[in-house]
């Protein structure tokens, strides 16, 4: 049953990912990307990581994709402006397939090399959200705080670049 579900989700994920690059209308591409993100969220659920799944939907499918769709609408890109470069597609697909082959090879090899990791029972019992929060405020307190500086820099940068008159 799980295998069947996995197969269905995978087919949808790959098909929507192909749609992202095959669609000529950028809005359609963006909407297909949302579908891809949902499929990835489903994978996280199947891997017993519900918190990550929720974050995936909220942050990517929610916040970021809204921004992308909004930008496309604001810029009002015309469809005929996108020309196709056949030699680009040729070299791109070579690089893409090489990367795909490489990744599959690495995953297969390392699966054979390392024993299957045991599921952390304690983590499942406590719930992921609590566990992640706990780690964030103890072991990873410093990285958590640095993010605030990173966001501040990004805000200042956005103002510097976008302000009408500086």
């Amino acid at each position, binding site marked *: 049953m799980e295998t069947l579900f996995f197969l269905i989700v995978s087919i949808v994920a790959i098909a929507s990912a192909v749609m992202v690059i095959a669609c000529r209308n950028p809005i359609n591409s963006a909407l297909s990307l949302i579908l891809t993100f949902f499929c990835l969220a489903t994978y996280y659920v199947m891997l017993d990581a519900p918190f990550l799944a929720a974050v995936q939907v909220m942050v990517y499918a929610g916040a970021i994709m809204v921004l992308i769709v909004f930008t496309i609408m604001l810029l009002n890109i015309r469809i005929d402006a996108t020309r196709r470069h056949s030699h680009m597609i040729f070299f791109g697909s070579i690089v893409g397939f090489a990367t795909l082959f490489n990744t599959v090879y690495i995953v297969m*090899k390392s699966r054979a090399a390392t024993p299957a990791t045991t599921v952390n029972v304690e983590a499942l019992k406590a719930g992921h959200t609590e566990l992640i929060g*706990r780690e964030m405020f103890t072991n990873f307190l410093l990285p958590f705080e640095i993010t605030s500086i990173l966001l501040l820099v990004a805000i200042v940068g956005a103002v510097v670049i976008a302000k009408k008159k500086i």
Partner: protein
Amino acid sequence: MDMITFPTIDMTPILPEIYLSLLAMALLLINVFMPGRQKGYLGYISFVGVVAIAVMTASGWGIEVSSFSGSVIQDKFAIFFKIIFLLSAGLSILLSDQYMEREGCNHGELYPLILFTVVGMMLMACGTDLMTIFLGLEVMSVSLYILAGFNRANIKSNESGLKYFLLGAFSTGFLLYGMALTYGATGTTRIFGISGQLSQMAAPAANIMLLAGMLLMITGFAFKIAAAPFHMWTPDVYEGAPTPMTAFMSAGPKAAGFAAAIRILVISFPALQPDWSQLFWILAVLTMTIGNITALRQDNIKRMLAYSSIAHAGYALVGFAAGNETGVAGVLFYMLSYAFMNIGAFAIVILIAKKGETNGTVQDFAGFAFKRPLLAAVMSLFLFSLAGMPPTAGFIGKFYLFSGAVQQGYVWLAIIGVINSAVSVYYYLRVMVFMYMKNPSEEFEWATVTAPVALALIISAAGSIILGVVPSYVMQFAQQAAKLI
């Protein structure tokens, strides 16, 4: 549900970062509430702040503290690099005012952004956790993208910022993927924990996930230090960015990339040293050769210095490939002397150029020595140092780097390095030929040297000479700092 027990936190290792962030935020507020278009005085405030923080950082020498449950450490290695970052930031701040006035930019936000860049670089140097290092790198990069595109009226500056942003974000993806794979293979992001896991593995070199992680991380760092074949962004970004920021970019962030890469590879992956050492052998040869050969053909002085900075990253990679204490100490010493001589050279470029970044070719140096003999002499000093002639800092730096490689048995690498160094003499001397042996093509007013730029020139010239004449004083600090394990 039990309460979270917070670990005891010692702030000592990140005190410089905290003070710098506070200073930067204070400057942002001052910038908002103070009237006036020209904000040159912010530069003075930030320069004084940088000097004070440098003194404070240096006073921690010899005190080793690890904090935040192993995310961050204060050791001699981190302090040495922090001083390099503060030095390059301080010198660039001194250069910024005159340049920005000439280009007519309002530069209130420039100084806080430089300080934030330093915060990011410092976190890369003192982080002992992959997450800390990654976030430090992001803080550094995001600030740099903005600094590169800071001169919004100039189309080249816009191009520079956008190009740096797109390629930089792409390369960060590689780095992050590498970190994720390393975490997958070892189950920890602490770099001391990774080395512990590796020592327990029977054959870490056969673990392909770990190898892939390491390779991807090296790719990410090679981009940040502009090593060939990941150097394509460098000339365009360096040419377009405001010149003081180009000077800053070529000295500070490059050193930060080396700091993080050395710490991760030397501490976490000693078991794989034969593998990464060979890889850096190839990277070093490619970087030196491509940088030097391409620099031969450049007429634009900023582009030439960009390719020369690629070549210098190659020399530093020679010491890195050796991976022994002499080599690593050589990298530390070289990064310090490179900050002095390169920022000094860029200061002269700022004086030569005119509004809108015109007048920036090697030919425009014609007759410089007749008009301003002292400045031409100082420029010659920097060029000699970059070319690696004795008795300048560049010569001593290369000497330590190559002797590290010879100690490790990489004699051929050292020979290729010396040949490259000889090639580089051509394009550095070409500038001097124009300065001393050609007549100026047309009469024009040379820029006046303002006090901050003069101070920056004095500091860089003094550094280039002192490090060359009495290197042992600084070298003993570098050698202590290089004792990582």
